[in-house]
């Protein structure tokens, strides 16, 4: 049988990976399998499914054929071995950590994080006996010094929220691997179109799929993708016999699928944070246009950042696409197509808090809301919203200042965005 060997490109995978047209109907679009459960072939097969001796559908809290298309597609785009979708990005983080960690374990995390992640890592994890050491991610020595014998993972965001720092993924991967621990990267702001952390040595990549992957701002979702390359053979939670599965050893039995199988069959099963099939369908619609949207997002973001950086009412702009940005060199290495479309700036004012309020209330095209990565342009004042649960010290560690405005640049007409920002700045 003559076989054509072909490595397909990103855009082809974006449209086709994970979905073979339905054999019965030939439906070209991905069908929505809005079902909770699946009729078993017979009692033997049912038993084998529950023992994980068969791959198959059991219950939508564990897997679903529509969700599987989303999972395989994002895994393909990230060059990962597989994916597990979750009900949200926060659930993707929680699932990952609950699969890897036990009480008494520690993680070392970048402090340049989404505020919700900092809260989860600090307070919720503390209740579970897990300690997070936050470090300024921009110096590798900070990471090295924070690692202890209890450290089980390093964690950071490809493009840090909200200050837009770029994670030195390759350096951190080397550091993590020298300690036999995985590097976990949240790549929500980059998407696999702008950066593929697994290609740089990261072991697990997470997304809030709610953002650019969907793009439409209609559905909350998260996803975990594993490279399949990390050696979990000495990693207790993945390698040791699991009493919940007749002493199954996930890493020995499933090898490069071990972590993901455990995340799905134990953690998601037990926490219940499964993605709904309808939301998976919505995410798939988004993924199909990811590259064309991202090209437009970064083009507009660069134009807006340049415009603001020369505006008399603007104090500073933190976008790694600007040549004078401290992360510009890292951005050119890791995100050569553009360092995302979410960044911050500050208005020049004696009263930064009031100026920020007047600015936001004066905008016509930018939507004031708590999200990023919509096709529409968005704006928020982090100190009073996304990061308001943090203390002043935590705010500062996360790089948030009182007058800081966060923009998520959409795909509108570029000139309309510049006009809107300019007229609102005149009100400050």
């Amino acid at each position: 049988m003559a076989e054509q060997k072909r490595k397909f490109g990103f855009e082809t995978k974006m449209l086709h990976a994970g979905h073979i047209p339905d054999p019965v109907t030939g439906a070209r679009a991905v069908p929505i399998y809005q079902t909770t459960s699946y009729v078993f072939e017979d009692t033997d097969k049912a038993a084998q499914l529950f023992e994980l001796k068969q791959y198959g559908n059991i219950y939508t809290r564990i897997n679903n054929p529509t969700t599987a298309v989303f999972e395989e597609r994002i895994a393909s785009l990230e060059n990962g071995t597989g994916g597990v979708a979750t009900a949200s990005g926060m659930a993707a983080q929680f699932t990952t950590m609950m699969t890897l960690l036990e009480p008494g374990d520690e993680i070392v995390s970048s402090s340049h994080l989404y505020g919700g992640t900092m809260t989860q890592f600090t307070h919720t994890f503390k209740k579970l006996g897990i300690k997070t050491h936050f470090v300024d991610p921009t110096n590798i020595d900070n990471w090295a010094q924070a690692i202890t014998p209890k450290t089980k993972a390093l964690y950071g965001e490809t493009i840090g929220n909200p200050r837009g720092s770029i994670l030195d993924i390759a350096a951190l991967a080397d550091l993590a691997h020298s300690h036999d621990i995985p590097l976990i990267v949240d790549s929500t702001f980059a998407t696999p179109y702008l950066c593929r952390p697994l290609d740089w040595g990261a072991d697990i990549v997470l997304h809030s799929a709610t953002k650019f992957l969907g793009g439409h701002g209609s559905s909350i979702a998260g996803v975990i993708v594993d490279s399949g390359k990390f050696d979990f053979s000495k990693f207790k939670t993945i390698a040791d016999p699991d009493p919940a599965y007749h002493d199954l050893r996930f890493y020995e039995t499933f090898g490069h699928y071990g972590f993901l199988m455990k995340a799905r069959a134990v953690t998601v099963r037990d926490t219940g944070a499964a993605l709904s099939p309808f939301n998976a369908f919505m995410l798939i619609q988004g993924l199909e246009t990811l590259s064309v949207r991202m090209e437009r997002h970064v083009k507009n973001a660069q134009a807006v950042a340049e415009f603001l950086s020369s505006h008399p009412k603007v104090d500073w702009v933190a976008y790694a696409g600007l040549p004078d940005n401290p992360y510009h060199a890292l951005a050119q290495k890791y995100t050569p197509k553009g360092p995302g479309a979410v960044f911050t700036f500050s208005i020049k004012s004696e009263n930064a808090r009031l100026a920020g309020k007047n600015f936001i209330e004066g905008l016509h095209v930018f939507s004031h809301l708590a999200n990023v990565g919509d096709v529409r342009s968005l704006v928020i004042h982090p100190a009073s919203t996304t990061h308001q649960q943090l203390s002043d010290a935590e705010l500062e560690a996360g790089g948030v200042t009182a007058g800081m405005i966060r923009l998520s640049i959409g795909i509108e007409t570029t000139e309309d965005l510049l006009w809107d920002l300019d007229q609102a700045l005149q009100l400050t």
Partner: protein
Amino acid sequence: MGSGSSLAVDVSMNTVLTEEERAKFQDSGVIRKVLSTSKTIAIVGLSPKSERPSYFVGTYLKSEGYRIIPVNPMATEILGEKCYPDLLSIPEPVDMVDVFRKPEDCIEVAKQAIQIGAKTLWLQLRVVNIEAGELATAAGLNVVMDRCVKIEHGRYSGSLHWVGMNTEIISARRGQRYF
């Protein structure tokens, strides 16, 4: 199971083989032909313990309709099938020899596989012995190496996809089993 239509696919992940070795020992067309034409599979190193990887694979293959023959000198019966101490003791024809043994044991297994007239030698994930592979190839056997027969069956029958794994298959043709 038909022979299926051709696929333009390059399954390149999760292997320690070089590109050249993959071309020899992981050809997608060969794997699908083997899955489609094999009926009797001798599993060398099949464990009687239900939590072991080989037991998972044996359970799966039996459930998918293959006749499995356990080969393990330490057991008499596994998965309801009579167990043999080595390949030479099996009193019936064997299509495929599936190997869960240390790489260094594979030369002897390959020699026995050739001797009993098996059509395929399949070395499981990370069971890598190029010399054993070359030996069996020279004797006219199909050889697959550093791949799991359960994973490959799941890849080309569609079920691996259901657990969110990256099958690396891209096709706009109407769905089917690819073997």
